């Protein structure tokens, strides 16, 4: 009974996060300039990380937690690299 309730509450939270990911995907596609797209990509990977934490709570294993940690690390590196590219690429051009 209480396990069912927890399952559905976590599913609702995951659906809300999926809607948030759809909103960031809209801004990635639509976004007028490159910096908007990079900002949305940053928000997208944070949301994906939170969805994986919720998956880990649903299954009761801590494996998903480590995947979430790796997504956090690599997303940070990727966003910093893209932001640097926006400045350097313009200098050469």
């Amino acid at each position, binding site marked *: 009974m209480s396990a069912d309730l927890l399952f559905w509450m*976590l599913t609702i*939270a995951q659906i809300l996060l999926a809607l948030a990911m759809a909103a960031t995907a809209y801004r990635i596609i639509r976004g007028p300039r490159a910096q908007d797209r990079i900002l949305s990509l940053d928000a997208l990977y944070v949301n994906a990380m939170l969805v994986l934490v919720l998956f880990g*709570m649903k299954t009761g294993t*801590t494996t998903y937690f480590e995947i979430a940690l790796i997504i956090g690390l690599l997303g*940070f590196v990727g966003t910093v690299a893209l932001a*640097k590219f*926006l400045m350097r690429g313009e200098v050469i051009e």
Partner: protein
Amino acid sequence: MSLSELPLWLVLAVGIFAILGALLTLVGTIGLVRLNNFYERVHAPTLGTSLGSGFILLASILYFSVTAQRPSVHEVLIFIFVSVTTPVTLMLLARAALYRDRMESPNARLDPDADIKSEIPGLEIREIR
């Protein structure tokens, strides 16, 4: 402790924290869609990285601390990492955006309420996308 004998207060606390965090993250990304220019949009997704991830990781700490019957604090690692790196990336991104706007229109006064257009008549300025 098996999954079927979870106490009700734990289920309610974990579920409410998770839904609250997800809702705050959704509000942040709706702001990302609806706000008008880049310098306003920079502020919106930080709601998800600070409060959203804070509540969801708090729910995770609660859940794994009770089910594993020992304190589970490795979620704090994710929270510290996210809350340290997000200002760094957003500051770099905002500086890159400011630099690009100034490259496009060097003489224009930077008006945060308008899209950046050249204020010099007759001067063709290519917008870099």
